[in-house]
């Protein structure tokens, strides 16, 4: 048996080395290297000192003459300017919360639009989908005003007089995760493909709506849920606009926002940028997202396939 498997494996390997595949593999390898190059560059650049990076004409692979661990130590231990652990914790909490909320709202809203019948359902759903067409940058200032005018919060006398929920955790708790429209759309598509008899059978067994949603339909939505989790987690982890724009206190910053601050401070007059540190911190932000994507990428395809979107 093992002999057969071994022989099949050898055959498959031999097949790959045939000229027609070899060329394809070489092309793919080349493309892979090109795509991987920025990551390799970032890893190596992290070993430079600020001065050496500034004054050296870098080759294709930046190899420092006097390598230093300082930037990586700052990434893990933080420094006076960058309390990395705090930012990391904020990023994690925010990502977990936003992901949980996205799953919950997507499931509930998806169910409502797939199964319930009410007047104006299609119009409402189209309106919700329409909000996805508005570029996020256009919403920045209105959202800022909405947070600043949040009733009775931050010293507001109903709507004015204070700072609302700006520069508080409420920005993340209330403002960040609204209903996940795209998730709701995917769940709706997926539930619509399921026979309604499933719900009816559960009802006959005495199940209520929430039980039907969480016990009957949710287990069948797991690939979609995984897809929503991954995409939401990645988007939240990488989001720098929300913390940068709606908060100011250091204690509320997340990793991408802190890096943006460091970079923009470096761009201000007279400040000499510490690019190796900025690059290392960016690498630190990218890696968790990369790992998440690497290990769970199959769910993205699977999730989309379940909605019938994938051809």
């Amino acid at each position, binding site marked *: 048996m093992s002999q057969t498997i071994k022989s099949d494996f050898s055959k498959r390997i031999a097949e790959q080395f045939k000229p027609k595949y070899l060329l394809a593999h070489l092309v793919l390898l080349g493309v892979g290297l090109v795509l991987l190059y920025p990551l390799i560059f970032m890893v190596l650049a992290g070993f430079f000192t600020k*001065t050496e990076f*500034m*004054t*050296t*004409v870098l080759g294709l692979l930046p190899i420092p003459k006097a390598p230093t661990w300082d930037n990586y130590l700052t990434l893990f231990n933080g*420094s*006076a*300017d960058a309390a990395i652990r705090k930012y990391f914790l904020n990023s994690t909490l925010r990502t977990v919360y936003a992901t949980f909320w996205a799953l919950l709202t997507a499931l*509930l809203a998806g169910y*409502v639009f797939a*199964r*319930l019948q*009410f007047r104006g359902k299609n119009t409402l759903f189209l309106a919700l989908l329409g909000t996805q067409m508005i570029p996020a940058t256009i919403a*920045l*200032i209105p959202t*800022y*005003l909405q947070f*600043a*005018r*949040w*009733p*009775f*919060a*931050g*010293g*507001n006398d109903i709507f*004015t*007089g*204070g*700072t*609302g*929920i*700006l*520069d*508080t955790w*409420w920005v993340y*708790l*209330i403002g960040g995760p609204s209903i996940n429209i795209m998730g709701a759309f995917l769940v709706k598509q997926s539930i619509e493909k399921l026979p309604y008899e499933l719900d009816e059978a559960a009802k006959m067994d005495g199940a*209520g*709506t*929430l039980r039907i949603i969480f016990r009957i339909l949710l287990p069948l939505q797991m690939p979609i849920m995984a897809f929503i989790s991954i995409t939401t987690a990645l988007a939240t982890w990488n989001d720098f606009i929300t913390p*940068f*724009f709606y908060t*100011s*206190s*250091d*204690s509320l910053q997340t990793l991408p926002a802190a890096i*943006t*601050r460091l970079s*923009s*401070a*470096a*761009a*201000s*007059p*007279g*400040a*000499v*940028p510490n*690019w190796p540190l900025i690059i290392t911190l960016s690498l630190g932000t990218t890696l968790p997202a990369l790992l998440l994507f690497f290990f769970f990428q199959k769910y993205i395809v699977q999730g989309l396939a379940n909605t019938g979107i994938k051809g």
Partner: protein
Amino acid sequence: MKNRKITALVGTVMLVSALSACGGGGSAKVGAPPGAATGGETKPAGETGSKAETTPGVTTIKVLNEGAVAIGVGKLDDLFAVKEKEYADAGVSLDYTPGSPVETFPLQYQKIMSEKLKAQNIEVVTEDWGWGEPLIQKQTAGFLAKNIPDIIVGETQMPGFAQQGLLEPFPDDMAADIRENVSPAAWKPMEVGGKIYGLAAQPGVSNLFWNKKLVKQAGLDPDKAITTWQELRDNVKAVTEAGKGKFYGGGVYAAPNFGGYLRYGALIAINGGSFADENGLPAFNSPQNAETVALLKDLNAAHPPGLMVNNNEGSYFDAWNKGQIAYLIDGPWRVQESKTTGIDLGMAPIPLSPSGKPANVTIGAAFHSVPVDAKQKEAAFAYIKAMYSEEIQQLVADSNTRSPILKKIGESKEYQEKHPEMYLHYQAMSGDVTGLPTFAKDNSKAWQMWGEAVVKGIMTDGDIQGILDDAQKRAELVTR
């Protein structure tokens, strides 16, 4: 029916829990009203007790960070120990005696500011809103929401804010004091309608810098300062030819962004041109501007392809730091930075065109202003006053990165002797210095049209005057 009720219930619970979390007891956690004084205690806008504790009986002002003097975010007094430790760990001496070199400029700057303000019962809480476009967006939102710090900081956007009536004019006595004792580069670009709306403690103007090693390799005299545009043209050409693709003549950054406008704006001003007239209407197609763009086109030939108009400013200055371009028109920080990069530096005023006169544009000027919606205006103006105090200005002089703005220090014999290069910069600051103008309408679009026209003039063989005429027509449509 049952389903509908459940859905409505879930929605209501979510909404109520969200709202109740912010109201009532929640508001106590969220923060006190901005600037509301309770029992002599003044809370900065939006600060919670856990973020920046304030001292009873003391007025607290919120100040936006300027990158060059920033030491962190929060109550200033709480930041000193952390920064001192950081310097000590890096083996940097914390000692500073006025009149001698300073290694810990941002720390000393903030310490002096803190001491001076403490004497007036004022304490400072700093915030970091970034720089450039993100800063402008956040400030715009802050103005709209009337949630704005007591001191805001910025560069090219600040005159526009003043014109829109968003900033408080300096009190008359303070303005008179500034006019008499402070270099015009620090306040002139922020003068609107005869009132001063902002001050930069350490502004810059551009000078010509050159890498002596590269100039020498081209067979030119590295110690001779060039004074005319023609000499600049000749020298960059000679260096480029000598470099044989390894290094180039260089000249000035000219991308279609503020980094470019601020730098070659000095050449425009020298040649008697301008970007806009006194009413904020475009003045793109003057013969003087066309001559300047023609110079830029010649300088472009002395750069690696595409570098001079590369939108990424960092790439351009990277080439300078790495010894790939020989000449550079830029701000005064190059003097100090060259010591880090090991470039043997020459420095001189920017060369003049045949009919030109010395003129300059402020660059790297972090103008500090008090918004009309600031909660602690009096204390905020005290902060600005401290910025041009003798102690702070002596520190700026000792930093050797910028020139002081206080005439008493900048024009002193001691300064001229100790900092001969930076004295050149001080002189440039005292001449005909302006800021970039703000167009009457659709400012960013008008700048975009100018920038694109210049790039077209530089990069194509098209008629420069024709290109500028076309840009002028289009800009007139958006600015009128």
